[in-house]
């Protein structure tokens, strides 16, 4: 794509590469101990009871320039994690470090952070103000950050062009005059208007037709290459995640079940939940059709999650120890981490490898 000469892209404050602080080895985002409980009543002793444990201790990091796919059933805390990272809702606990700077420290206040991290929402219609024209919607963010009206409008037109919508035709339109795919392109342009380095895509293509979905996915890949973006890509569609993601994080009931390179996770998963998710994908091969349900039942109630491993109530390999011991997220291979007792030598699970004497 040719780059139109404009002050929007030549402005050093908006050049992502110039804002790199920690160097390539520093993860762009690292999150530790993220917790969010909703509701619940606080007893007189100060304990909270009956809270929905939407996100219950999540650690992950995203390297610069990669796409982290986040998958899991609905209600597993994917979207809550996104909203916590985006600071739309305040976490109960946890630390967010962006490019080596802790969020909330003097070096990284919320306003600066919000210029670096942006989000694309799932519902393309609800996420656009019906009373604003397309260009006003896109220009709103830069205007808030003190860019003049003319320049902000110019940047909006540039971005419209970059997301494949001709500015002359679309700039003055209202959201109801656009199709779903066009609206999601506007949402992407709006997210990019602040020249962020990390874009959180929360089910950004899930509501689109398959053909439009493919176009938007390709657009996202193009934009990523052009602007040097890093994506956190949340989806329930494993095929889409396989197409987009470099690494995949599988979540179950507010916790991380497995993280690793997407080709490893999606080919030979170590966690039984990931295996069940993969088995539930419809196959094109009639010989490999799904004969029995890989998973039975609904996810347990997050108000009162199962003891030990949260998956043991639905896991076909569950043994007695799984109800008592909570597995930590531990590496099986170098970049591949699993929270399952079977993958941890000496854990006491019958299927786990025995602990070698010299390993300790």
């Amino acid at each position, binding site marked *: 794509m040719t780059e139109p000469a404009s002050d929007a892209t030549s402005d050093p404050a908006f050049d992502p590469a110039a804002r790199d602080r920690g160097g390539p080895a520093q993860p762009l985002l690292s999150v530790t101990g993220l917790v969010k409980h909703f509701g619940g009543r606080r007893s007189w002793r100060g304990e909270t009871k009956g809270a929905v444990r939407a996100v219950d201790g999540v650690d992950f990091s995203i390297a610069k320039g990669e796409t982290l796919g986040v998958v899991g059933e609905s209600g597993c805390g994917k979207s809550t994690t996104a909203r916590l990272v985006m600071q739309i809702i305040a976490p109960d606990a946890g630390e967010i470090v962006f490019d080596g700077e802790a969020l909330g420290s003097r070096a990284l206040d919320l306003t600066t952070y919000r210029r670096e991290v942006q989000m694309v929402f799932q519902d393309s219609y*609800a*996420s656009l103000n019906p009373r604003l024209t397309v260009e006003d919607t896109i220009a709103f963010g830069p205007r*808030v950050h003190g860019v003049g009206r003319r320049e902000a409008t110019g940047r909006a037109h540039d971005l419209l*062009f970059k997301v494949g919508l001709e500015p002359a035709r679309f700039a*003055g339109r209202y959201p109801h005059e656009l199709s779903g795919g*066009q609206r999601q392109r506007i949402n992407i342009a709006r997210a990019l208007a602040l020249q962020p380095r990390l874009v959180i895509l929360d089910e950004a293509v899930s509501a689109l037709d398959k053909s439009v979905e493919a176009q938007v996915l390709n657009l996202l890949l193009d934009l990523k290459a052009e602007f040097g973006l890093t994506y956190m890509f949340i989806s329930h569609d494993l095929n889409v995640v396989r197409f987009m993601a470099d690494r995949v994080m599988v979540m179950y009931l507010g916790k991380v079940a497995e993280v690793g390179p997407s080709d490893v996770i999606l080919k030979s998963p170590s966690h039984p939940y990931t295996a069940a998710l993969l088995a539930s994908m419809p196959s094109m091969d009639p010989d490999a059709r799904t004969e029995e349900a890989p998973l039975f039942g609904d996810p347990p109630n997050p108000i009162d999650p199962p003891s030990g491993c949260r998956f043991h109530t639905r896991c076909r390999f569950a043994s007695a120890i799984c109800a008592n011991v909570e597995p930590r997220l531990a590496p099986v291979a170098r970049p591949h981490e699993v929270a399952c007792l079977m993958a941890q030598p000496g854990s006491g699970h019958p299927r786990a490898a025995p602990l070698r004497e010299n390993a300790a």
Partner: protein
Amino acid sequence: MAVTTVDSAPAPAVVPAKKLGRGYWAGVLRRLARDPVAVTAAVIILLIVLAAIFAPYVAPADPYKSSMIRRLRPIGTPGFLLGSDELGRDMLSRLIYGGRLSLVMGVLPVFCAFAVGSFLGVAAGYAGGWLNTIIMRTVDVFYAFPSVLLAIALSGTLGAGILNAIVALTVVFVPQVTRVAESVTTQIRNRDYVEAARVSGAGPFTIVRVHVLGNVLGPIFVYSTSLISVSMILASGLSFLGLGSKPPEPEWGLMLNTLRTAIYTQPMVAALPGVMIFVTSISFNLLSDGLRSAMEVKA
């Protein structure tokens, strides 16, 4: 929507914003113009308003000039097109002049309540939390009184007079407008586009100005227009009780009051101010209904 064509297209020149004249309100007006009932109501209101404004030119006689020998003439008497009242004043002229005060009493309290109520309701709805609790519970206290009673009690306390009646009516309507404003704002507040605006770093005042008001003022406005008829009737009621405008002043509610003794001798003439109140308030209601349905259409 083809992605491929874009790559070959030349980079666009940055053209300034060109609104294509199909904004939201243009669409509302267009749909409103296609609604025969709303258009009729609007024409009637326009006629009454114009007649009231240009009363000195339209009215055939002096509305204050009484004549003891020409009292209570029936409708159609030469020189008295709509008859004469109990002091021999020309009814048509008094009805035309009376529209001035009656319309002011109908529109002004609602306008003030619209301004105050929108402010309170949007603040309560967007801020939530303790501010919402304080504002909405206070509003509930006012809600506990029937509106007629509240209006009478307030203007009775403040004393008779047009200004006091306007203040009393405003106080009556503020809680109702506030409630509508609060509920609409609470809905808008959780929309994704408001979250997206928050994510882009905008402060609450910017978000309210750009993203909330535009989506909230329309519904509040429609609701407020439906209050104009109530306000007119309440104002007439206050005048009828002697709490609004004072006698010789022509005002529809007051005229209804002073003519009530003639209900047996000249029922048609005595009913005329009531007819005016009825026609005007129902026109306002029909127009606000039309506005509501014209605004509801999405596309």
